[in-house]
């Protein structure tokens, strides 16, 4: 193996400066952990040095001044404006030329057909506006800025499409596959509509999460107000308030509505996002909705236990392991039921 260096001759400083050692201490994975656990077992007299090196690295924590997400967003807005100004300055002639060319094309079309009705023109125009599609990345989230500067964050493998120049058609319409978080700019004159396989969502300036899937589609509202119209139940539109969760099951054509911790449902969009005071009960509901288990918590005191910190919810196994570790729980799986109870000592 590549890492069989002469570690037995290493002193504490050598361990601290070693790449593979640092990697294990900071980002342990199965490979590094197996290697180092075995190495320590084979070299018991080095154990203390390894522990000291490890303690030193873990003790080196520095004060941070990391800006909040909102501050980064503001800075980005300013930066994009700087770039836009720069690009405008650089190429006014090309833009003008392009416009003139477009005008000529219209003029030519009018001349050839002789008589073009206004409706016809509009039809032609609509046909010309291209549908653009964005697909999320395979293993990370991707944020998309829409023409009205609304923001969409696509989860892995999700995709969204919309007409390129939607300013001309009064509506802002997008088509969604998979899961996405929307932060929509307010513009009452231009309705914002999200189309998905089983439902359409009418939006007022707001932020919410949609998880579209073959069996279920979930919508969780974080702020503002939305109206959900189901394709198969058009007579039953739902109005959502912040914290509302609506699930549509395609299989039995059933709609479930309840109150949830909406932050939790959108937590996938930011790596390392910190949650504050989420109760185990709320997480249990989340696990039921996302992973399809029935979750039982052995007592109500435990259900009210609170967690804060960075929580990765994408991976079921990891989520359960983390929970079990953080709250000292025993989690048993029986068929599709998860039983959560305090760990027996």
């Amino acid at each position, binding site marked *: 193996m590549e890492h069989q260096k002469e570690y037995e001759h290493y002193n504490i*400083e050598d361990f601290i400066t070693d*790449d593979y050692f640092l990697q294990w201490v900071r980002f342990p994975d199965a490979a590094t952990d197996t290697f180092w656990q075995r190495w320590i077992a084979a070299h018991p007299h080095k154990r203390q040095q390894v*522990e000291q090196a490890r303690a030193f690295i873990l003790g080196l924590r520095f004060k941070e001044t990391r800006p909040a997400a909102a501050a980064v967003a503001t800075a980005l807005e300013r930066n994009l404006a700087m770039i836009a100004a720069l690009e405008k300055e650089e190429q006014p002639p090309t833009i003008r030329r392009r416009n003139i060319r477009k005008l000529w094309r219209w003029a030519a079309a009018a001349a050839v057909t002789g008589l073009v009705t206004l409706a016809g023109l509009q039809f032609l125009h609509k046909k010309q506006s291209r549908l653009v599609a964005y697909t999320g990345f395979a293993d990370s989230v991707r944020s998309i800025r829409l023409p009205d500067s609304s923001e969409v964050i696509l989860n892995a493998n999700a995709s969204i499409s919309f007409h390129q120049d939607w300013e001309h058609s009064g509506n802002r319409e997008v088509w969604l596959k998979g899961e996405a978080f929307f932060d929509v700019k307010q513009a009452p004159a231009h309705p914002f509509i999200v189309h998905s396989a089983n439902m359409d969502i009418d939006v007022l300036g707001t932020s919410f999460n949609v998880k579209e899937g073959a069996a279920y589609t979930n919508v969780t509202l974080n702020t503002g107000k939305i109206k959900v119209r189901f394709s198969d139940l058009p007579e039953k539109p739902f109005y959502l308030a912040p914290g509302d969760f609506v699930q549509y099951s395609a299989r039995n054509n059933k709609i479930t509505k309840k109150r949830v911790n909406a932050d939790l449902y959108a937590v996938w969009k930011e790596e390392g996002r910190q949650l504050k005071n989420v109760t185990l009960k709320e997480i249990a509901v989340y696990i039921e909705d996302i992973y399809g288990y029935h979750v039982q918590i052995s007592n109500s005191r435990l259900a009210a236990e609170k967690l804060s910190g960075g929580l990765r919810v994408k991976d079921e196994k990891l989520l359960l392991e983390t929970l079990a570790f953080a709250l000292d729980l025993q989690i048993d799986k029986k068929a599709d039921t998860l039983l959560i109870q305090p760990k027996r000592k």
Partner: protein
Amino acid sequence: MNEHQHIDLAIWEACKEGDKNAYAHIYKLYYPGLFNYGCKFTTDAALVEDSIQEIFVRFWTNREKLAAVRELRSYLFVSFRHYLLKLLSQYRKIQEDVTATDDYAFELEISAEQQRVNAEEQQQQIQLLTSAMRRLTPRQKEAVFFRFYENMSYEEIAGILNISVKATYKLVARAIIMLRDAYHTEPLMKALLTITPLAVALGSMQLSMMICAQNLPHSL
């Protein structure tokens, strides 16, 4: 916490081709780290932000000339460091180029948060480590910061500080000896050893995925 900050090849390609969404993604990924780094040179947050804005505009203008995605983080840190130090030296009306000397400030402070060892011992440890840290040169502090906070390779650090890889390695090694000399690891060791079973229980779990329960030590 900061993690491995490497961007997707697809994002990089999209950005190169002029996709502003991909650009925004890169911006949001690196902005917090650059800001945090910049605040070690100066307390003037506006100056730090202006410098970041400037180097990102340059990045966008020059993106097609950039060689590979692997170099992106280094590129951003190098140009940011250069730009900010130049601005700072202009403000201080110093004529010579400070990037070539050690004549700049780099405040790397030990955080007292999250280290939940016995409060008294912890206080003492942090004080010792803090005073040891003050004795390091700015360049040593920067190297320690890049190595143990940004988790960069020696090659990457060498590129940013514009010195050889060998010199970087020495810089870090010497800083570690100075830091370790100054603070007696004994008391801290004892406390950390008691939580070793937790660390082992964590096993293959990534530290960054950890969640901290409020009634548990936050020290891991």
